[in-house]
């Protein structure tokens, strides 16, 4: 039995679990509504008279901050609470398969929600002549960023049996990773710290890496940043599962 077939089994169970309850529907509706509301009303999309999606993508980190932990919170906490954790952990599944299968299911679901924002892409192309290369890069960056937030959420979810606690702690950790690059935080450092320190703080930030991608340049360093965040937190996820095994 290949690991890939096992991965597919775990993935499809998890992915379908989103649709077994109204969760998928509610999430997608709220996701699309929030994306639209922020872009058009808060971001004054029309008043900018710019045929690009800078405003739209600018809100992604902030919306993901709350929406994606909601998607990830059930991944492990729910298993612990319902007792199915014991079933899952005693099936002949390598641990990384369960961790990766769950993560990819959540990531694919987030990707689906993101893909459903396509009408806004159609809109800018109808209204003007945007740089579709930049938009494509931004979508890719947004998807990578979603992966990083979900990996954080999955790791936190594996540490508790309470989805609400998983949600709140994940939001806080995601928030820390988001704001380290915001002017609010950087200004605090800029006043006294050497430039190298400011850049180091900023380099931990989801915001600055995402902003770099939305300018239309997919720099390998930004891609690497998001992939290493994902790797780091999935590693933490496995470590937490191992520690819990010790009782």
């Amino acid at each position: 039995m290949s690991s890939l077939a096992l991965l597919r089994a775990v993935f499809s169970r998890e992915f379908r679990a989103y649709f077994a309850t109204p969760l998928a529907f509610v999430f997608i509706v709220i996701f699309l509504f929030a994306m639209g509301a922020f872009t058009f009303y808060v971001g004054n999309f029309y008043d900018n008279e710019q045929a690009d999606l800078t405003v739209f993508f600018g809100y992604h980190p902030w919306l993901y901050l709350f929406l994606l932990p909601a998607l990830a919170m059930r991944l492990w906490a729910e298993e612990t609470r319902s007792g199915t954790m014991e079933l899952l952990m005693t099936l002949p599944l390598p641990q990384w398969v369960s961790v990766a299968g769950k993560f990819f299911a959540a990531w694919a679901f987030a990707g689906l929600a993101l893909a459903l924002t396509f009408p806004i892409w159609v809109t800018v192309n109808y209204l003007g002549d945007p740089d579709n290369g930049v938009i494509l890069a931004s979508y890719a960056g947004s998807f990578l960023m979603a992966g990083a937030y979900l990996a954080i959420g999955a790791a936190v979810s594996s540490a508790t049996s309470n989805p609400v606690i998983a949600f709140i702690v994940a939001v806080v950790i995601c928030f820390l990773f988001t704001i380290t690059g915001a002017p609010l935080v950087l200004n605090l450092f800029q006043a006294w710290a050497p430039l190298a320190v400011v850049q180091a703080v900023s380099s931990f930030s989801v915001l600055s890496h995402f902003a770099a991608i939305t300018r239309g340049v997919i720099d390998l360093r930004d891609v690497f940043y998001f992939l290493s965040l994902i790797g780091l937190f999935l590693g933490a996820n496995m470590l937490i599962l191992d520690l819990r095994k010790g009782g």
Partner: protein
Amino acid sequence: MIEIQNLTKRFGAVTAVRELNLSAGRGEVLGVLGPNGAGKSTTMKMLTGYLAPDSGTARICDHDIQTDALAAQRMFGYLPEGAPAYGDMTPREFLAFIASVRGLAKTDAAAKAASACELGAVLDRPIETLSKGFRRRVGLAQAILHNPPVLILDEPTDGLDPNQKHAVRELIRTMAAEKTIIISTHILEEVEAVCSRAVIMDHGVIVADATPAELASRAPSGRLDDVFRAMTTGDRAA
């Protein structure tokens, strides 16, 4: 088939299982008896690789559960305490998932297990809407699906009505000859009904190991209840 060696598990200051040694062979139906908190479930959790022991180990069909967990886990079917299952799935979907994880996706193993556990009527209803009896049978079907040489069942008939209990015991009896089955329970009549051997656990250690009939004969009344009570309440006079 099953060898447990010096298995020990502590939770903080409490030693849940202490230096436990136990083995069971093919054709044996071993009942593990004990009051709540005796360490039965903890033993099963270590035996199946869900919990890591503080010391000692267990081997299932010669595969060490700690160093060769996946190979060991392929050898047994496990019904955890409370028969957990994914409530949002139907028994058909759930058993198909277990079959795919067990590498049996393209066989009719799931259908066979479902019919052995008489799940036909509820195959397409979400598990969370099923009665306790059906849920337990879904858990049992999941455990026997890959026809494993070893079955580990934690309170398989807890919460079932007398007819359902009878059906589950019949099922266990039909499988007994070619398997090694460990049943944890605090229902004494179960031991007399299906087990070929019984051990009584108390405070993490085994206090008795014999056939149910032998155990029962240790009490003047000849009843297993009295032996159980005498052994697990500190009164060894019986």
